[in-house]
């Protein structure tokens, strides 16, 4: 055997095909050049028929953001920042107008909600609740599977879905290990991590807290209708809950049918959970205080409309209370939250407003959908929801809302003979935009599930798209049978 002292631990052998390596090393520059080229071409050419010069330049910024949000050639938040700086630079809005849009209710709601979520995770309250519930309901493999799905969905009602998935992941990893489930071989293992991801995703559409895209959608609605329309915390939940229930039912059926547990007992997992619970000891004062603040804040959000107080203010009161009660410090919050979210959402709201006020949104919507389709409200709703559902598998769900919702809101008065309630458009985009079940790039819970090795594309196969399809049909059923007749959205 030849001696080869030249092989060092520092040498990294890239095992990918040469074309893939070349693409990986150059794709950033190719994308940036492509995006820049398209932007310059659109911004400098004669306006398309039906577009004003401002509308044309807004279209250029819109397409640039679309490319960058899809390819993620720049971080999501930096693309938001880019939108904020290009709008004044291109003469679409003044810098005062643009930056004023940044200081909106949704941003402050998200700040409050993320601080509360950081406290829930930091104190261990969420972990304790999750372990207690799983220990109680997970008495059989099937119950454990479905219990995890429902638990993740329930937690995503009060915490961001991404945080729920990240918080539950260590617990589920331990459960899988103690049950001796083998990645790539165990149906139960795949099912558990899919239950974790799908539960978080489905629960995330139920309230403003589950996905920050939901308050983002409300803000875009308010900005685009000059404050005439809004959706309250409770109103959102009432509208979304039937879809949540139907989606959970479909997810449970798919899990039980295609990922039927191959094990007989969950005793080792429950024993491991009990050991961890014992190690945690009794609930600390910080946990109790966090639970109390969360409870009062949720009650405040539910009653916000009656109290005539903004949900953002209630969220911030909850966040400030946690600091006042010394439950968390700013250092803790900084380590739990990536504030890039504020930049992305600020940019998205400003872009949405610009697209709407320059007539660009109307032009894009008409160009894409055509006049004949817009005459049929149900068909238009279906196409919008399906588009959001497809796009969200390939890009950030907040970006889908930021790009599609302004277009849909501009269509609302023209759909059918009398137009439709713009709030319907919010649900038609924001709810399907949260329902990405297949690709790891679509949403963080999916990426986390894939990171364990239990969930693979081959393992998911057509079950993810099947769940997407069922959810789309459920969405249409809820739109026709619930939002119209029961909630009065027409």
């Amino acid at each position: 055997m030849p001696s080869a002292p030249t092989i060092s631990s520092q040498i990294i052998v890239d095992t990918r095909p040469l074309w893939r390596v070349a693409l990986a090393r150059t794709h950033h520059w190719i994308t940036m050049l492509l995006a820049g080229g398209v932007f310059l071409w659109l911004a400098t050419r004669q306006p398309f028929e039906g577009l004003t010069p401002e509308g044309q330049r807004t279209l250029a910024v819109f397409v640039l953001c679309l490319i960058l949000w899809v390819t993620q050639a720049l971080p999501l938040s930096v693309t938001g920042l880019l939108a904020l700086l290009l709008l004044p630079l291109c003469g679409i809005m003044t810098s005062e107008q643009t930056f004023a849009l940044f200081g909106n209710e949704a941003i402050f709601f998200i700040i409050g909600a993320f601080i509360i979520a950081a406290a829930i995770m930091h104190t261990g309250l969420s972990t304790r609740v999750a372990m207690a519930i799983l220990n109680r309901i997970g008495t059989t493999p099937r119950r454990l599977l479905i219990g995890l799905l429902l638990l993740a969905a329930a937690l995503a009602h009060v915490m961001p879905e991404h945080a729920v998935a990240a918080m539950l992941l260590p617990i589920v990893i331990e459960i899988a290990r103690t049950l001796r489930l083998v990645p790539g071989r165990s149906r139960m293992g795949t099912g558990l991590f899919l239950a974790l991801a799908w539960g978080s995703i489905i629960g995330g559409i139920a309230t403003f807290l589950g996905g920050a895209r939901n308050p983002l959608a409300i803000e875009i609605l308010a900005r685009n209708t000059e404050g005439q329309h809004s959706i309250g915390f409770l109103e959102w939940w009432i509208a979304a809950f039937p879809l949540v229930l139907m989606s959970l039912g479909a997810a449970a059926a798919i899990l039980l049918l295609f990922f039927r547990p191959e094990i007989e007992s969950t005793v080792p997992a429950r024993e491991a959970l009990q050991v961890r619970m014992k190690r945690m000891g009794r609930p600390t004062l910080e946990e109790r205080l966090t639970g109390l603040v969360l409870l009062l804040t949720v009650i405040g959000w539910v009653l916000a409309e009656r109290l005539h107080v903004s949900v953002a203010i209630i969220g911030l009161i909850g966040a400030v209370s946690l600091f006042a009660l010394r439950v968390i410090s700013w250092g803790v919050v900084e380590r739990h939250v990536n504030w890039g979210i504020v930049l992305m959402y600020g940019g998205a709201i400003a872009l949405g407003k610009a697209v709407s006020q320059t007539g660009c949104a109307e032009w894009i919507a008409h160009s894409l959908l055509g006049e004949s389709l817009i005459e049929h409200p149900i068909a238009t709703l279906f196409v919008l929801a399906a588009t959001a559902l497809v796009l969200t598998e390939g890009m950030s769900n907040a970006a889908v809302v930021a790009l599609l919702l302004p277009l849909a809101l501009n269509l609302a008065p023209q759909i059918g003979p009398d137009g439709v309630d713009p709030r319907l458009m919010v649900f038609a985009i924001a709810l399907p935009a949260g329902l990405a079940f297949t690709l790891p790039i679509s949403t963080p819970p999916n990426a986390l599930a894939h990171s364990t090795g239990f969930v693979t594309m081959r393992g998911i196969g057509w079950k993810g798209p099947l769940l997407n399809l069922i959810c789309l049909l459920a969405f249409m059923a809820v739109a026709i049978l619930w939002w119209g007749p029961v909630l009065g959205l027409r």
Partner: protein
Amino acid sequence: MKPILLVITNSSECPLAIDRAVTLCREHDAELLVAYVHDPQVTESFQRLAMNQGFLGERVGEMVHDALSEDERLRAQGALLAIEKQVTALDVRCRSLETGGQLASAVMRLAFEHDVHHVVIARQSRSVLSRLVFGSPVRDLQRRAPFPVEVIYES
């Protein structure tokens, strides 16, 4: 006689590869080195994706990373212990090793460090698309290694 190196990863179990390695050890009266190679590349890329898209802070990332690393460490120890027991029961000398890094680099490093005679590695079934996009570390190892690399198809 120089040892035989059996390489295992977290992708799946490899009973056929173990059988083959034991047979080689008996044929050459060699010691069996069982190496668990932890390649964090894929896991970490998914993790980064989740953290960036979810705007989750570094503490959350650490929590997820620690949980995955701990799981992999315990699984590796369990797998190595089980193979060591199985092989020792067959009267074959056995030692286990754990290492991290990209598969091809890590195996070549170990092979040179321990002056191995022969490498046995399991290959799991993967889609054509997956091999096209992510490449095949096993094929790469075969291509580069100046020593015999025997690939056992487990599925």
